[in-house]
């Protein structure tokens, strides 16, 4: 059964049309890679799918429901965008990982054992839990941000170059973790990656945005 559906979505930035007619369906456990030349709107597409901005046309649905039917915070808890540049809040890594439990749409506090297990899976020592998050390297922060997002148990993650600051070892660990969650929990992912080898080994399908670039500005294609 289709978990996530993107139907003829168009994306504009500041009145300039970037993408049009982007369509995609994902089943539970599916990993899809997104490709396209830089500046074509990959990040804006992910932000649109994460309902951080509105599409200018088309629709998105998770489990058959639109963001407005679920409420936007609930949508984002289910379809979670993880930015390329990790953002850490003041305080320790543990405080960062616990942050979402404050939100009404999330509620549950993450399990300490599970957090430790996740950190270890991503080659981070459990001791980082008590370190100041902003003092970690970007690569470490990128992994903490991924754990923070997986901690709210989304159905779909939208990963924007999730391994851009990682060495090959850590990259492989991140790929393994997402793959394992896909197999055990049916997590689906849309992943922007510039590395063709990574896409080949990590994702089963690809969405090529060069076929959806808007021609001219402000004109929608019909038909």
């Amino acid at each position: 059964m289709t978990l996530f559906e993107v139907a003829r979505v168009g994306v504009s930035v500041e009145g300039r049309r970037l993408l049009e007619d982007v369509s995609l369906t994902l089943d539970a456990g599916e990993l899809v890679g997104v490709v396209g030349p830089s500046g074509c709107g990959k990040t804006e597409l992910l932000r649109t799918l994460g309902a951080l901005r509105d599409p200018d046309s088309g629709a998105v649905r998770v489990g058959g429901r639109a963001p407005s039917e679920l409420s936007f915070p609930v949508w984002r808890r289910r379809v979670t965008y993880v930015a390329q540049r990790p953002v850490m809040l003041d305080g320790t890594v543990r405080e960062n990982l616990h942050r979402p439990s404050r939100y009404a749409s999330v509620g549950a506090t993450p399990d300490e054992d599970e957090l430790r297990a996740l950190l270890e899976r991503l080659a981070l020592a459990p001791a980082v839990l008590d370190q100041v998050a902003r003092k970690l390297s970007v690569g470490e922060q990128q992994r903490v941000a991924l754990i923070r997002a997986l901690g709210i148990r989304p159905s779909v993650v939208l990963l924007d170059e999730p391994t851009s600051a990682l060495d090959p070892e850590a990259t492989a660990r991140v790929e393994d973790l997402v793959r394992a969650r896909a197999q055990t929990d049916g997590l689906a992912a849309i992943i922007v990656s510039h590395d063709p080898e990574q896409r080949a080994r990590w994702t089963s399908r690809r969405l090529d945005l060069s076929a959806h670039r808007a021609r001219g500005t402000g004109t929608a294609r019909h038909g």
Partner: protein
Amino acid sequence: MADGGVIPLGPVELAIAGGLVLVAGAVSLALRLKLEHKLGVAALRTVVQLLLVGYVLEWVFRIQSPLVLFAVLGLMTAAAGRAALARSSRTFAGAQLGAFVTLVLTGLTTTFAVTGAIIGVRPWYHAQYVIPLLGMVLGNSLTGISLSLDAVLTDLDEHRERIEMELSLGATAWEAARDSLTDSARRGMIPILNSMTVVGIVSLPGMMTGQILQGASPLEAVKYQIVVMFMLAASTSLGCMSVTLLVVRRVFNERHQLRTERILRR
């Protein structure tokens, strides 16, 4: 003067006070600060503006018309709203009206609470009490509001990534903006908290000084000053809180999306 009361000042006394400005002018000349001209204009403005206000207040107090009184209060509030925005580095559409409504709701209600319920003036909108009290309330609130407004707009504008990170993990607009909101409200309240802490130790407040000069007993003047400080604390904190809430309502849409393009830099 032994029996207290106001000592009336005549033209001669005011002229002597003018001599004090000449001292400042002489300093400027001696040190070549080239401020004599500005000083002269400023002194003239002080005289003209205060005399005008004096005449207007005399008239307003004398005619005792609620209509005129409320027109004056409206003008004062509008001017305070403008001043609050003028100091902010960022603004948003509707900020002017928002600041005005905030000041009306927080400033006028606290002032009338004091004149009606605490001082017990009859009628509660007695111009002689309402106008000076509202003036103090507005002066303090506008400082607080402009600090809070600037802080919350700057924070939301500069920390879009942090706020969107929280939104993308399931936070509502309010949950994502909470840190910005509390920081900004706190920022606006610091000046009034500082002045509450040092009041009487570092300086005697103007109103209390005025009452003592008029011959009031210091203890009576102190009681008034306590009421005034509490009134200023209440109105400033309400003002800071309301204006930050207003900004969050304006800068997020109903779909819990942050619209930083609604924040206008200047």
